[in-house]
């Protein structure tokens, strides 16, 4: 073992407070140290070549550096080692700048400390082991979970880059929530007009396979190598045979509330989700089908010209391997029945924003006409209540749903355009319009006549009059007065919530959720689309409330991450992973539950003892998953578990030198 010690002056940064020559001299006396040198700037070209020359000249195999923080230049020196044909983990750095010269004022004491720190690094280097990063091949196929706008965008981007994508959607059509909207803010584009082409493009793209009416059943594996089982629910309609003629839908005698229209219309038991559904083939809702309930009927089967109806169809399990998974599962809207003061669910004329959205939609239940559910008459005075369940710690979600301010402005604009004699009143706490052209949009809403009143509504109650109208009791902060409005229709801006099944999915994927149930990104600023699980990325509202452009750009972000991974073709783990000394390990697996990455598993090894071959269990590390935290090593009783670069022996050597 031949160790070279190099002490950096860092100009005057170290030299002024630490006697570098003394440090070099003191450490030079340590065993195995064959060369010492102090250099003005080790990180410079000159410094680097000094080290390089010393390595050549003295056949050094370990290098110890006394300089700035390893967090600063560790990679610089590791690359140098690489160039010199030495393992990068044979370089050890003593931090004598940030942890010594910069924080102390007594040169004598600082020099003593610097000597200690370099000695510590030398001792550690005695026990250094060469480390290599493991690399594994990547399966170049992506799975996108959720066929809303975010999922569609991510799938299209990846597919356009030339990689195959499977797009999973639990409903019978892709499109998601955006398909239910009428217009989009702040441009008032027709939602369907911009969404439908994307849906069609996704369905016809040669690299995209749609799995509608399907859910995730199981996930195993890790980045680059996920193994996924998809459950495709039985549609009772043979996709191959069905031409989508719609005869069955017309003739089906069973009528149920249409969820897509928020219950403001009826659909059949065999149905397509909406007119522009993709794929445009019906599915049979067995819960409401007369044949499935009573055994009698069978009208759809009789009438189908291609004999596509199959009552015996069963759920299908599809298994596939993927390199990356994009989660774009979207959101649900809170049903505000728990906010008793707003009378939702007790009076038909108290509705949610999404219900209003469907009413305004020309292909919605009223063909774009406004009506009061209680009596079918056109409402003249409409009151909007913001934050109905959002920012509400008492009886709702404590976070801001982010999009309500803007879509309410949109609603008032649309109402004023289409029905000029309606009056809109908006009770709000704050109006938040952070976004390009959003403030202007809010301005436009006010200019067009929407009345904004700053104050939260305390109660909506029936007036008890013949018209069955509502009394809205609020407060106008500008007037400083309680303000009551007799309203024909009350619209609640309900809160955005994670999907019901979000927790279960998180469990399958090994990702975490925040306190509100939205999926957690790996880093709030710098890794906004990644998760703690490598190879799993987040797009859209499943990660937190956001509007369409944000969801779309996040989706493209996830696509870029997946494409980068596929282009590279392999995943490289960190070199400083855990490692198991099989001789010591008894396979007790106490370490397994400690690992946050599920990188530890049990493996059987064969060993010869007393003349016999015997199988025995040991812990085994998946080096592609392990991130090298060492929580397992901190627990292992026998010391069988260790961490490369921070082995028990190395740390002990450091402690012992001090």
């Amino acid at each position, binding site marked *: 073992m031949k160790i070279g010690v190099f002490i950096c002056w860092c100009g005057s940064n170290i030299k002024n407070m630490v006697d570098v020559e003394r440090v070099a001299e003191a450490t030079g006396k340590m065993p195995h140290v064959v060369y010492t040198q102090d250099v003005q700037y080790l990180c410079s070209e000159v410094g680097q070549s000094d080290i390089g020359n010393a390595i050549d000249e003295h056949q050094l195999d370990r290098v110890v550096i006394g300089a700035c923080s390893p967090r600063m230049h560790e990679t610089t020196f590791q690359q140098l080692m690489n160039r010199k044909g030495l393992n990068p983990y044979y370089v050890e750095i003593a931090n004598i700048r940030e942890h010594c010269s910069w924080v102390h004022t007594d040169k004598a004491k600082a020099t003593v400390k610097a000597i200690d720190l370099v000695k510590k690094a030398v001792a550690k280097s005695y026990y250094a082991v060469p480390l290599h990063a493991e690399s594994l091949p990547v399966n170049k196929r992506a799975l996108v979970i959720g066929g809303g706008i975010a999922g569609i965008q991510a799938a299209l981007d990846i597919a356009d880059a030339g990689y195959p994508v499977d797009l999973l959607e639990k409903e019978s059509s892709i499109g998601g929530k955006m398909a239910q909207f009428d217009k989009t803010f702040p441009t008032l584009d027709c939602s369907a007009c911009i969404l439908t082409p994307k849906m069609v493009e996704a369905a016809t793209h040669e690299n995209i396979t749609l799995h509608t009416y399907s859910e995730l059943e199981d996930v195993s594996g890790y980045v680059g190598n996920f193994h996924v089982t998809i459950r495709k629910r039985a549609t009772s309609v043979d996709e191959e045979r069905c031409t989508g003629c719609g005869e069955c839908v017309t003739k089906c005698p069973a009528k149920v509330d249409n969820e897509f229209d928020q219950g403001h219309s009826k659909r059949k038991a065999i149905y397509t989700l909406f007119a522009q559904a993709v794929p445009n083939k019906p599915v049979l809702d067995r819960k409401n089908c007369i044949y499935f309930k009573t055994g009698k009927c069978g009208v759809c089967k009789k009438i189908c010209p291609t004999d596509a109806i199959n009552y015996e169809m069963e759920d299908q399990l599809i298994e596939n391997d993927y390199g990356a998974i994009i989660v774009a599962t979207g959101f649900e809207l809170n049903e505000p029945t728990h906010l008793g003061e707003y009378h939702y669910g007790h009076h038909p004329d108290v509705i949610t924003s999404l219900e209003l959205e469907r009413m305004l939609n020309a292909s919605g239940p009223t063909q774009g006409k406004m009506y009061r559910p209680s009596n079918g008459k056109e409402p003249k005075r409409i009151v909007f209540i913001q934050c109905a369940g959002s920012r509400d710690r008492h009886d709702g979600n404590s976070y801001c749903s982010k999009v309500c301010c803007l879509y309410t402005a949109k609603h008032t604009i649309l109402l004023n355009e289409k029905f000029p004699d309606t009056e809109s009143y908006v009770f709000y706490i704050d109006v938040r319009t952070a976004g390009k052209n959003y403030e202007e949009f809010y301005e436009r809403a006010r200019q067009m006549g929407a009345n904004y009143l700053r104050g939260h509504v305390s109660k909506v109650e029936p007036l008890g009059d013949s018209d069955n109208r509502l009394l809205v009791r609020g407060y106008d902060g500008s007037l400083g007065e309680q303000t009551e409005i007799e309203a024909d229709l009350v619209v609640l801006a309900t809160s955005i919530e994670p999907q019901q099944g979000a927790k279960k999915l998180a469990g399958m994927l090994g990702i975490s959720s925040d306190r509100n149930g939205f999926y957690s990104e790996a880093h709030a600023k710098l890794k906004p689309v990644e998760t703690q699980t490598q190879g799993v990325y987040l797009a859209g509202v499943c990660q937190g409330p956001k509007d369409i452009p944000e969801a779309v750009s996040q989706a493209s972000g996830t696509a870029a991450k997946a494409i980068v991974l596929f282009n590279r073709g392999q995943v490289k783990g960190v070199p400083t992973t855990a490692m198991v000394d099989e001789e*010591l390990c*008894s396979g007790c697996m*106490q370490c397994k539950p400690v690992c946050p990455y599920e990188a530890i598993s049990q493996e059987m090894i064969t060993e010869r003892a*007393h003349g*016999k071959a015997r199988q025995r269990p040991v812990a085994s590390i998946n080096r592609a998953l392990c991130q090298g935290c060492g929580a397992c090593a901190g627990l292992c009783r026998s010391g069988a578990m260790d961490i490369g670069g921070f082995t028990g022996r190395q740390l002990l050597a450091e402690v012992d030198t001090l």
Partner: protein
Amino acid sequence: MCKITEELQQIAAELLKEGKVDLVLGYTKGEQEEQSVPCIVTQPEDASKLIFDEYSEKALSKYLLEESFQDKKVAIVLKGCDQRAFKLMQDESRLGREDVYLIGVECPGMKWGEDLSPFCLHCDYRTPAKEDVDSLLTGADIPEAMQGEPLDHEDSFTDINRLEKMSKEERFEFWKRQLNRCKRCYTCRNACPVCTCRVCVFDRENPDYIDRAKDQMAQHQFYHVIRAFHVSDRCVSCGECARVCPEGIPLHLLNQKLLRELDKFYGEYQAGIDEVPTPLSHANADEPDFFGKEGKA
């Protein structure tokens, strides 16, 4: 002869006769009246040597790890705590259930000098669960003190309370007196049924955590702290460690103290009864933070 011993001899003889097992690991009477020692019976006619009484304290399960027991079909006598240890070994993949025939026995409580062991007074698992063993022998003569509800931890290990009330210096002096007697003979480790590492960390030469030649306080402290830690959440409370100590060091107090802390802050857990992972093998956000703003740090 008590009922359990009688039935035990019968079962052992049958198992051996029918060739179901190669040997039976149990207890026999020792040289002194108040002593029972482990014993291996391989012939049906020797089954009459086997006994089970209030001196059958030794945890037998650990023998199963020894080389001489490998590749043999073994029947073993297990009281509650010993069965917990067996279960833990099983959970920790140290042995399989298949080749071992378990004879569970109802434990009447073991002697601790003149009195009953505090472990037994606190124990609520004297008898292995029926479904966990192949045969279960009950009908032990239970002393009065063992009938009814087991004692709380506080009431059985009163020495811990006593020590906690002392000043720090008194405690230090107490342990100094105790630990200075330690010869590091490792009998406590060897007897412990949950000390099941392939190679004990103290037997390794590199790193040399302990210098066997040096008889020094710091070495004793190191050994006993780390031993207590390795056992802590996995302790099955058999009491063997303290019982076998030739110097009579109450070293069980260390792991019992840790157990008490674990129970207090993370909920009760009984190794070998409750499912793994053991408390120290998992941690989560909801657990108390001692080192935040208000912590004792």
